[in-house]
Structures are given as C-alpha cells and as structure tokens.
C-alpha cells in the first residue's frame, strides 16, 4: 500500500499492548504512506490512545512493533520522541509560563526547532509573547500547543482528540493550519477523533479500531469503493448477498444491507430488483463502529494507560 516511492510513514507489524491480563491492542498490522492524513477512529476504550502512545514512544509494545519512517519506535528514547510531534487530548502547557518561556523550552529541547516559524505563527494569530499561558483562552492555548508541535519540525504529527473542548470556529482555525502545514511540507498527520463529519474532509487514510482490534485500514477512497449499500427483499438471506454483510437493517418487506463487496462481486451477485448504492464515509464508519468485534475481543481495554491496570467490576470474568 505504500507503493514503491519510499519508506512508509507508519508501519505496524502485529503490534500489541497488554496491561496485566488485558490486551488494549492486539495484532495490529498496517502501513501508511508519507504525506497521508490518517483518521484514527473507534469507540472509547478501543485502543486509540494506546496506539498513539506506542507510535510516539510513550509506551513500550508487548509484542510486534511499530516504525515511524522506517525506524522502530522505542519507548522513552530521545531518538523516537524527536521524530514525532504529539499533541495530547489536554494539550498540556505550563500555565505559569509566558508564551516566550514555552518557546524557549521548545527550543532547548528540540534539535530541529524552528523559532522563526513559531514566532511568525503566533504573531499572525495575535498571541503576545509576554502573556502568561493561564491568562489565555482555551483556543489560544490550543494554538500555542499546535505552534510548538509544528515548530518541532518532526515529519509526523500525532493529534489525540485535539481541541475537543474548543468552540467550532477555534476548532476550524486549528484544523485549517494543520491542513495548510500538511500541504506545505508534506507532513504526515494522524488524528484520533470522534467527529466523523470533520474526519471526512480531513483524512485520506483510515484506521478503525474496536475492542483493541483493527477493523479497517486503508485509503478512504479504496475503503469506500470496497463497500456497497443494497436494498433487497426482507426474505433475502445474508448468504445470498454478494460480499460480507457488515450491517443490516430489516424493515417489514425490505432490508438495507451494507456489504463489503467490490464492483466485480456486485456485478455478478446482484439480482433483478435489488438496488445498489455507493456507501458514504459516514455510513461506512457507523456500520463498523456498531459491528460486534470480529476477532475474539480481549476485554474492554481502557484508553488511559494509567487507569488500565486497575480492576473494574465490568471486567470480572474475563481471562486471557
């Protein structure tokens, strides 16, 4: 899937992470070409944050590996941390610092730091350098975090449910700058998000996780082309339908079915009277998110590694 034109920006090979007896992520294999904007989708607890933490070197894999631009990620090594910019959910900043202090910190800690980029960007946003972080709005703080992430000049930008708390306009401005940076420098971006409508415009690549298992991985266009929505008589059994049935809604006399079938399978498997339509991005995601996990789901892993090891009543009776 990466083609012959270079090393994959992200390549996972049977990647897995276990907390105690709970697998938060398992058997994860994919390869994303450079310059992609990847949407990372899944219900809460599906393993999105675990996957991002393994990628950026904030967690060590239990099995398998993940490589960023051909180099295997190793937890807590300067080498791995330097290759990825990571913006966590709460885009942490030191609230007592001034904006200038934050830039100074970024400059001291990152060998490829681009001070001109940081200053130009903050200037354009009208954020004064002498202000303390805690006196700025949530939108401005998010923009400072993004500025820090971009000025780091890493080839991969990982965003974990970025700016979830921001108002729609601040959010749009944030995403505009991420997309402009991607266009400008070929930056590869991976975005974990629940906002499907937004992901449709941002992403050209998709990773969908449920219960720690990868359910979909590939270019958005290919995934959409590989699925169809069929309207068929209610009596039609799943086995009669072309491809693999992902979701099915039964009415009194007819059923609407989302099936994993390409046009070839469709052409040979479609009967007179059946209707076929292209699937939309949103329909595709909803169908897979609602689908029971296909692989024997490990457990209900928690997205937060800090909490994941703790016993929860919901997890009783699960053994690995």
């Amino acid at each position, binding site marked *: 899937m990466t083609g012959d034109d270079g090393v994959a920006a992200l390549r996972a090979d049977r990647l897995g992470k276990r907390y105690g007896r709970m697998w938060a992520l398992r058997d994860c294999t994919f390869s994303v070409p450079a310059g992609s*904007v990847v949407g990372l989708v899944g219900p809460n607890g599906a393993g999105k944050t675990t996957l991002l933490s393994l990628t950026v070197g904030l967690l060590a894999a239990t099995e398998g590996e993940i490589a960023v631009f051909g180099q295997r990620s190793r937890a807590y090594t300067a080498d791995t941390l330097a290759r990825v910019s990571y913006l966590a959910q709460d885009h942490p900043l030191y609230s007592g610092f001034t904006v200038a202090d934050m830039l100074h910190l970024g400059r001291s800690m990152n060998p490829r730091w681009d001070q001109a980029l940081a200053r130009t960007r903050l200037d354009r946003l009208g954020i004064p350098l002498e202000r303390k972080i805690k006196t700025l709005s949530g939108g401005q703080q998010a923009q400072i975090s993004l500025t820090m992430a971009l000025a780091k000049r890493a080839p991969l930008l990982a965003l974990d449910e970025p700016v979830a708390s921001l108002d729609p306009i601040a959010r749009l401005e944030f995403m*505009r700058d991420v997309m402009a940076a991607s*266009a400008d420098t070929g930056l590869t971006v991976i975005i974990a998000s629940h906002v499907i409508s937004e992901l449709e415009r941002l992403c050209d690549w998709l990773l969908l996780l449920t219960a720690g298992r990868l359910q979909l991985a590939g270019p958005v266009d290919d995934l959409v082309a590989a699925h169809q929505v069929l309207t068929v008589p209610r009596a039609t059994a799943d086995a009669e339908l072309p491809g693999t049935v992902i979701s099915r809604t039964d009415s009194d006399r007819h059923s609407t079915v989302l099936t994993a079938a390409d046009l070839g399978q469709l*052409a040979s498997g479609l009967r007179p009277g059946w209707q076929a339509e292209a699937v939309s991005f949103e329909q595709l995601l909803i169908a897979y998110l609602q689908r029971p996990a296909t692989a024997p789901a490990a457990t209900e892993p928690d997205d937060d590694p800090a909490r994941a090891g703790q016993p929860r009543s919901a997890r009783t009776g699960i053994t690995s």
Partner: protein
Amino acid sequence: MFRFRLDGSSGVPPYLQLVHQVRQSLLLGYLRAGDRLPTVKDVAGDLAINPNTVVKAYRQLEHEGLAGGRPGQGTFITAALAAPPPEASSALRAPLEQWFRDAEEAGLSDDAVTALIAVVRQDLRKERVA
C-alpha cells in the same frame, strides 16, 4: 481569486464538491479561460480540507480538459465550458416531454418516475462496468 465552499452535510464527497463548483462557475461565466485557481495549500488552509483531496479535484478537472497545471505557476482554467447547444437541448426535450406525459397517463406518481429514472440510470451504468 476563486474561492471554494464546502457543505459538510450534503453527502457529496468533498473532492466532487470542488469539481462541481468549478463546472458550475464555468457554466455561469464566473470562471473563464486563463483564470488561476487557488493553490492546493490555500484551499486546504481555507476550508480545513485534506490537500490530497484538492489535488484529486484538480486532476479530475485536468482530465476533463477544464484546467491545466503550469509548472511553478499553479492551476489555470484552460477551457470555457459551454452549456449544451440549444439545438441539442430542444431536440432532447420533445421526446422527454412526451415520455413524462405517457408516465402520467400510466398512473406513475412523481416519486415513481424518479425511482424509475434512477433504476434505468443505474442499469446503464452497470452495463458500462460489465
């Protein structure tokens, strides 16, 4: 400079929305041969949209002969898109009117007509694929 819009709730894929807007603006005369389209970066930054989607839309426009890239300068409108010639429209219109009258006489509702058109169009597409 031409500016694109994006309707998140239309259900039309973003790249097709961009292509449609150029086609429509050409038909309406808002875009003319020689006009420069905004750069990929400008559109991506303006709409908060994936740059590859913009590239795909521009490629489609080039494929349709409506736009062309000039190295180092950007993407330009290369052809005016004329509305179908009036003769063709009126020649097609007469049998269509007759068909609609026949459908009404046969008792087809508006919805039934719409559904029938969709089915026929789909069957023709399938023939082309097969």
